[in-house]
């Protein structure tokens, strides 16, 4: 399945997609030899410089798909490709922003941001200097010496964002990164993300259960059905102009049109999905 939208700055040469799922199926082993079929055969392609949001009900396997793209999880069948190369270990092109707190609590904000460069061999002083610059970009320079427990949830997410982006990954995977935050902070974090992203437009795979957030952020919204055996049930291009403002874009008529259209399908498809599962269960 070719990507539906191609970012303008991709250039003439047709590069391999940042992430490509080829008939990926994911199962988990349960006790007593049973297994849970989390994701049914899924094809999905994420072009370079494309911002894709994956939306679905909680527990539908969105995060599972993301973990497969990161190489943290091996698919039971099918294959994941990163820039044309089959993934059989961690995806070295990817940066991953987790839903839960993933900062090292024993390192300061500065050390947490610098560590990704340090382990790659950057001298400590240079790594810290660049980390400072990144903390400034996410507006946290005055908090550089603080430990994660001294920061608010939103501030910790900013540190996490800087921690991921400083390594300059070619693909950014985000697992409901703003899920635990309050509504206002989510808007601000969304704007910050868009602002940072617009600098070089990395490929982004953004998992969320919030359809509004997905439409406001992404170039393309993928809808997944409820699990088990979750699958893609919708794929919508979002032709809203950029740069976008998280709060303002939600007032635009085009936004409402898209939201109505996608929500209509999401709702009926999800309900149909539930019915199927009930049938399968009986």
């Amino acid at each position, binding site marked *: 399945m070719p990507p539906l939208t191609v970012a303008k700055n991709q250039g003439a040469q047709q590069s391999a997609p940042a992430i490509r799922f080829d008939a990926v199926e994911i199962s988990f082993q349960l006790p007593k030899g049973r297994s849970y079929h989390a994701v049914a055969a899924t094809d999905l392609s994420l072009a370079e410089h494309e911002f894709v949001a994956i939306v679905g009900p909680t527990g539908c396997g969105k995060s599972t798909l993301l973990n497969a793209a990161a190489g943290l999880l091996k698919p039971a069948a099918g294959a994941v490709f990163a820039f044309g190369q089959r993934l059989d270990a961690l995806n070295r092109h990817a940066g991953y922003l987790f839903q839960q707190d993933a900062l090292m*609590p024993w*390192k300061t904000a500065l050390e947490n941001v610098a560590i990704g460069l340090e*382990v790659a061999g950057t001298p400590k002083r240079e790594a810290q200097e660049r980390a400072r610059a990144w903390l400034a970009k996410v507006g946290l320079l005055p908090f550089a010496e603080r*430990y994660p427990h001294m920061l608010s949830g939103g501030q910790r997410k900013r540190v996490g964002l800087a921690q*991921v982006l400083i390594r300059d990954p070619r693909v950014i995977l985000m697992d409901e990164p703003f899920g635990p935050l309050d509504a206002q902070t989510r808007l601000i974090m969304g704007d910050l993300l868009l602002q940072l992203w617009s600098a070089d437009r990395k490929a982004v795979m953004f998992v969320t259960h919030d359809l509004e957030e997905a439409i406001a952020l992404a170039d393309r919204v993928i809808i997944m059905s409820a699990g088990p055996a979750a699958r893609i049930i919708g794929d919508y291009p979002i032709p809203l102009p950029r740069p976008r403002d998280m709060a303002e874009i939600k007032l635009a008529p085009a936004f409402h049109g898209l939201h109505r259209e996608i929500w209509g399908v999401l709702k009926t498809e999800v309900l149909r999905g539930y019915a199927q599962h009930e049938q399968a269960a009986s």
Partner: protein
Amino acid sequence: MNRLTLITAQIAIAVIAILFWQVVSTTSLIGEPQKIAFFFSTPLAVAKQIVAWFAEGSIWYHLWITLIEAILSFVIGALAAVIIGFWFARQPRLAAVFDPYIKGANALPRVVLAPIFTLWFGLGIWSKVALGFTLVFFIVFFNVYQGVREVSGTVLANARMLGMNERQLLRHVYLPSALSWVFSSLHTSVGFAVVGAVVGEYLGSAGGLGYLIQQAEGVFDVAGVFAGMFVLAAFVILIDWLVTLAERRLLIWRAGPGETTK
């Protein structure tokens, strides 16, 4: 309660207890003062003994011996426990094989080992260090083991995604996590190092606070026994205070009990 009233109250407890002791051991309020003084001595006699020890300087030698024994058993015990605890935590099969032996060794009352250690290491400090070692080792070992096993899966996955290899994970994730558990059990493990030293001295030695108390008991010198206990108590409080200072420094990244972590 502010700091001043707290300290006043704390001092008041000591003053009242000592006054009561002085009154019952010198007046016939409860019974014959001679008898009570024989069994419990008098605060004045105990104070005289302590002052005498410090005046003639002999106490410093004993304090030094006990301190050296406690430090050595803590350092050697903690070091061995960190290395072995780490190794076991990273090798679950090894840990499973050794599990019953570790539990068995830990369940053993260490006092029964003291004569054997004296036989092996002599009457000098090393038999006491060995006894302290067996106490400190297990506390630190179990904490390291737990610390390595309980590293948050998200933090670990994140560290991997940030490009850390096994060695870097060990240094930046597993070790800090394990050490945080060790540091938070510092009071217990340091306390046990002192216990090991004093009990070892008590059971057979030529120096140290335990030796001092044991010698006084041997000649029914009750004032000497009480004086030894008070010096020991002061010594332990001082060490505990130093541990608190170290802990504040080492666990600065941790949320205090009043703060939330979420």
